[in-house]
């Protein structure tokens, strides 16, 4: 009896925290999404009404625009674009930097500078992006002018066709520090003997990288990809500060739409906000479950 209770006692503190901060809010949010609301007062069960309303909004899925026409496509497609561009780019850049700086003297210093992006609060990152992309004061346009491409200079976050991509690339700059650090740690864990054996067997540097480094870094890659996807799906602060989802909702994302429904509408609409939150959770959960299953199969 005592043996059965002891593990539960150990779980107790963590369970309390999980129930309070994860399970209850999640269930409450899902329940909220099925109710109709007048301001902050629930007026009854709404079934799937909130979900239908949310998914039929042009701000969530804009049927008037196609991928070829470019933004504003709606928050959901924008989130997908974020994942499609941000995840491979930040993962690849992190790997590249980790490998290049591995044996460079003073590499730790360069890594620290790159990692600074991760240290600054995302709100500050968003403000920095506004300056970086400014037509007259921004460093991006200064570089363009310096290399003779001054005709391209513009406030990149002010135009619907470039604003979304400007935010994504800015976010890659901030996030690459994370993937670089994870890959750096992964590289330190690869036994030197493997490289020595490959060299003795006459393998080229590219072959070593392809057949030893990359496979040995798979756990690190799993971590980087999973964390980046989750981070990108719930992206909010950078968008909020840099563009507030504009111009013309060209940069809006699901988390921002949820926030606007709850706090920027009068009366607030907790039902639709909760529906967006639930959809976001489902998408994130589906991806997380897939990644965990892949990881377990490999193991």
């Amino acid at each position: 009896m005592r043996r059965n209770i002891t593990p539960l006692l150990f779980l107790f503190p963590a369970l309390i925290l999980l129930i309070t901060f994860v399970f209850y809010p999640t269930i409450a949010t899902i329940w909220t999404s099925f109710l109709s609301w007048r301001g902050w007062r629930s007026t009854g069960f709404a079934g799937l009404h909130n979900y239908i309303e949310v998914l039929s909004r042009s701000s969530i899925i804009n049927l008037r625009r196609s991928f070829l026409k470019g933004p504003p496509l709606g928050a959901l497609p924008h989130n997908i674009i974020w994942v499609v561009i941000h995840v491979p780019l930040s993962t690849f850049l992190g790997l590249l930097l980790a490998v290049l700086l591995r044996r460079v003297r003073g590499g730790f210093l360069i890594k620290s500078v790159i990692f600074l992006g991760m240290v600054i609060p995302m709100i500050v990152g968003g403000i920095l992006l506004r300056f970086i992309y400014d037509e007259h004061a921004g460093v991006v346009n200064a570089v363009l002018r310096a290399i003779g491409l001054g005709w391209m200079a513009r406030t990149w976050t002010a135009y619907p066709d470039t604003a979304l991509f400007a935010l994504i690339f800015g976010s890659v700059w901030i996030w690459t520090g994370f993937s670089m650090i994870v890959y750096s740690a992964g590289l330190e864990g690869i036994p030197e003997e493997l490289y020595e054996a490959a060299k003795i067997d006459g393998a080229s540097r590219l072959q070593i990288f392809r057949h030893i480094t990359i496979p040995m870094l798979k756990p690190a890659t799993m971590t980087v990809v999973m964390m980046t996807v989750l981070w990108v799906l719930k992206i909010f602060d950078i968008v909020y500060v840099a563009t507030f989802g504009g111009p013309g909702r060209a940069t809006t994302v699901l988390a921002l739409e949820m926030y606007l429904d709850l706090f920027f509408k009068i009366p607030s609409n907790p039902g639709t906000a909760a529906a967006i939150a639930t959809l976001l959770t489902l998408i994130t959960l589906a991806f997380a479950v897939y990644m965990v299953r892949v990881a377990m199969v490999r193991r």
Partner: protein
Amino acid sequence: MESKENILKGKKITRREAISTAGKIAITAVITGVIAGVGGYLAGTSVAPPKTVTKTVTKTAAAATVTKTVTAPGTTVTVTKPTTITTTVTTSVVPTPKVELTVFSLWSGKEEENFLKALKAFTDETGIAVKHVPQTTEGLMIGLPTQFAAGASVADVVVAPWPAWIKELGEEGHIIEVTDLIDPSKYPPSYVKLVTVDGKIYAAPFKAWAKPGFWYKKSFFEKHGLTPPKTWSEFLDLLEKLKKIPGIEAPIASGDGVGWPLSDVTEAFIIGRGSPDLQRDLIEGKVTFTDPNVRGVFEDLVDLLKKGYFSVPDEWTAQIDKLWAEKYGIYFMGNWMTTMPQVKDVKDLGFFPFPETKGAVAGGDWVIVPKYTKHPEEAKKLLKFLAGPKAQEIMVRAGGFLATNVDVPAEAYTPADKAVVDFLKTVDVVPDLDDAIGGEFQRTFWDQLKLLWTSPEMLDDVLETLAEVHTKAVKKT
């Protein structure tokens, strides 16, 4: 040796026992922490009992007089005798805590400085202290309803410029009805009507403002031989001349932030290139953004955008700096321009109305009292004071402020504000479009205009989106 081993054996504990003990300690610590936390919270939030001060006062009335009147039939005799009375009174006094009201508004810088003068006058008159906390547009628009939803309010009094927002809060029961606190006849009827729902007035009119036209730097115009235009063709000529001046980034500055400066200049186009009635019809939902008349106005605007006459939107106060640095020629802005610190010399600041316009937008700032204030009586006093002529005259004399109370004397206005007031007398004054409709329409209007400014070729998308949201919004109102 053996005995020592036994002793040690006796003290040995198994790993399971050790872990179990550690677990129990951890759980006890967590529970204790939770209890202490909850206890601490309750102790912190409970109100301390008022401290009673006992005072004993002994008073001696030396050489006081006692008057006794004796009335006999037909005669009256009055006898006065000097006497000394000593009284000892012991009273228990519960000192009333000093009230300090917290006021939220959107004003900072010079506007806040002027507002503080009015608040000081209130404190001098009533003894009630007032703390002003400036807010951002988002902070006020989002933060306040969130606090109200939780049944609380940090602010005791709020000054806000959005009548639709105020009406919503009133209907939701979050703010105190002020019908009995103000005299509606003392204000222009529209300022009261805008915050009235079913005969209940939810706010007191305080400030009136107007968006009279384009502001410019007089010395810059003189230097380049430019004159304020009166007709549309003169306006177009001016823009072309400005564009050709070296150093000019764009003839017209475009303000950004959350988006209202773009909506202001757009509304000037609706009124000037359309008519004041077109603006009213949009507010009342009689027409929408796909209407040919509205579309015509937007086509005029788009024409100027395509010719590069407007700058890319940038933070609105930074644009005043650039206007003063002669990077832009003109800037459409409200009458508060005269109080902006970026205007280095207000005498060098001129304005001209939108060419050939028959109307202008005027709006206001209203005072509301949240239902959740801890000092409702004091807050009501402040509301009445701000809505009254004394506070408004102080603000008017400080400049950049137009009074809503009709008892404020005309001679109190500064020359710059007087010019705005005189101009308003010559045109049809209409409410601000997005402030009057409010809600999701307001945010969408601001956002879609940002899109139009950088992508004028997307006019159809913009008008369709605006029509969609506008139709829903006016149906609701």
